């Protein structure tokens, strides 16, 4: 076989359905677990965070307005695309986390299964968390969960792919849009996930992926007045405290970091964490002699 120059991949951000470089023009070196150079990833600035929030806000109306069934189909399509890129992700996860090929393969399989699991929840979560409330009067009283809005997600630092999908999928499954900060040390699987999302019917801006220093990007997001919630999964104790204080300013919903085994099948906590319950009253009409008119 003749010597061939290998084609290196330029990892880029995923914002608003496009693949921009960082506005700052900066990159940083990403290394594998043994310290070998893997690639340069964009080192996002606060302006990238700001642009991502604008994109996420713009996408929110359409995504939250789509039917739950449609969102489920779109998310399932993402799983199909992930399956097609399975080998690439196995390689990236193996490099990022220092796993053997077979171990990495089981991580990627679990990740794709996780995505399918959450895709199935899109049109079921409302029945589980919402419902009809008994009231003393001629009214229907219905509670239904609604998406919170733009959610900033600090992806887990260690589990670069399974952990990432475990925190991103529940946020968008319920109709939120997300600004995701990839694992600082291992951002490559997250940046590649952007490429999957771009080719799988997920409208641009629903998920925005930023790579760089978690603390640097998270600070402006936590203080941002147009971000409605923040998932602190990827923050250490000190950073989480600092961000929670900043997030209190506009009463963001905050999901504190917690110890999670991402291989375990999750509950619905991450789905409900970014839902708000809306309750409506609707008259049933006069109650008849039998006690009910319906």
């Amino acid at each position, binding site marked *: 076989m003749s010597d061939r120059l290998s084609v290196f991949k330029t990892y880029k951000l995923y914002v608003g359905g496009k693949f921009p470089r960082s506005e700052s023009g900066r990159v940083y070196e990403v290394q594998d677990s043994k310290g070998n150079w893997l690639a340069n990833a964009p080192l996002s600035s606060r302006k990238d965070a700001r642009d991502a929030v604008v994109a996420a806000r713009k996408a929110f109306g359409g995504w939250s307005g789509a039917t739950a069934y449609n969102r489920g189909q779109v998310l399932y399509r993402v799983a199909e695309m992930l399956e097609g890129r399975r080998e690439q992700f196995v390689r990236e996860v193996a490099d990022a986390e220092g796993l053997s090929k077979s171990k990495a393969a089981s991580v990627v399989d679990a990740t794709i299964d996780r995505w399918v699991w959450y895709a199935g929840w899109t049109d079921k979560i409302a029945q589980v968390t919402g419902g009809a409330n008994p009231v003393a009067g001629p009214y229907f009283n219905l509670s239904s969960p609604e998406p919170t809005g733009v959610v900033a997600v600090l992806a887990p630092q260690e589990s670069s792919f399974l952990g990432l999908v475990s925190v991103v999928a529940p946020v968008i499954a319920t109709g939120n849009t997300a600004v995701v900060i990839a694992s600082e040390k291992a951002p490559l699987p997250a940046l590649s996930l952007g490429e999957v999302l771009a080719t799988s019917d997920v409208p641009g801006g629903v998920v925005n992926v930023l790579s760089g220093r978690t603390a640097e990007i998270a600070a402006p997001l936590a*203080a941002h*007045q*147009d971000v409605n919630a923040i998932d602190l999964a990827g923050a250490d104790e000190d950073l989480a405290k600092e961000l929670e204080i900043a997030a209190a300013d506009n009463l963001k919903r905050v999901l504190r970091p917690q110890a999670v085994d991402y291989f375990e099948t999750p509950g619905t906590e991450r789905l409900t964490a970014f839902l708000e319950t809306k309750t409506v009253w609707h008259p049933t009409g006069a109650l008849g002699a039998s006690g009910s008119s319906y």
Partner: protein
Amino acid sequence: MPTTAPTARALGDVTASDSTLRRFLHGLPGVDAVGLEARAASLGTRSIKTTAKAYAIDLAISMVDLTTLEGADTPGKVRALGAKAVHPDPTDRTTPTTAAVCVYPDMVAVAKEAVAGSGVKVASVATAFPAGRAALDVKLADVREAVAAGADEIDMVIDRGAFLAGRYLKVFDEIVAVKEACGTNARLKVIFETGELSTYDNIRRASWLGMLAGADFIKTSTGKVAVNATPANTLLMLEAVRDFRAQTGVQVGVKPAGGIRTSKDAIKFLVLVNETAGEDWLDNHWFRFGASSLLNDLLMQRQKLATGRYSGPDYVTVD
């Protein structure tokens, strides 16, 4: 500084007849389109930060002609706009007022009442805006109605059909007649609708034509067509007012309108003004932005500078 344009002595009798006017306008140097756009683009790369940015944002807010020109305008909407012009950010009273509100002639009285006592001016479009396709008498009646209702400024549209057909004197006479109808109190802004003039040469000619006819302001566009204010055509008009003052001593204002939506864009225009026409124009008496959504972005940027946190559309009014 004179604010009304006399027939410019320095330019002699170029407006004496259609042929002398045409000879003069076509004798203006041609525009180097590539150079113009490159210059506008390069001036757009200036970095304006911290205190300079704060100054620019406040200046830009004070230059906004807050505009609503919809068929669906109601007195309530115009009053809301007036309130916003007077206190753009009710949570921060250090925010400057906008320069003016810009409405249709039938809404002038409502707008006048809404901004009474605040120093905010009321501008009214007139002369069969936005097409300008009506008889001169109708246009003048439109103007007189707006002036009688108390408009401080009149935004007229030129007859683009006549201009493109080369009947410059007709356009000229119309502007003169409208200027006369404005009387002594109302300032006249002349809209060229640069998006319909097709070439930069035409924009330069229209600028000179408008200034010769006594415009107090030359304005790019109505905001009703596909191409509105661009840095390049605004730069061209700024060059025209600079050269006009150099030749005649008469200063004319410039108003880009339409398509300017972000603070970043607005600041780029301010750089153009400073670098082309000069500091004398960095004042809302001589430079305006015709805009509606721009103001919200300026306010969000202003809040960001004040608090250090990014603001969002929940913290400004929905217009």
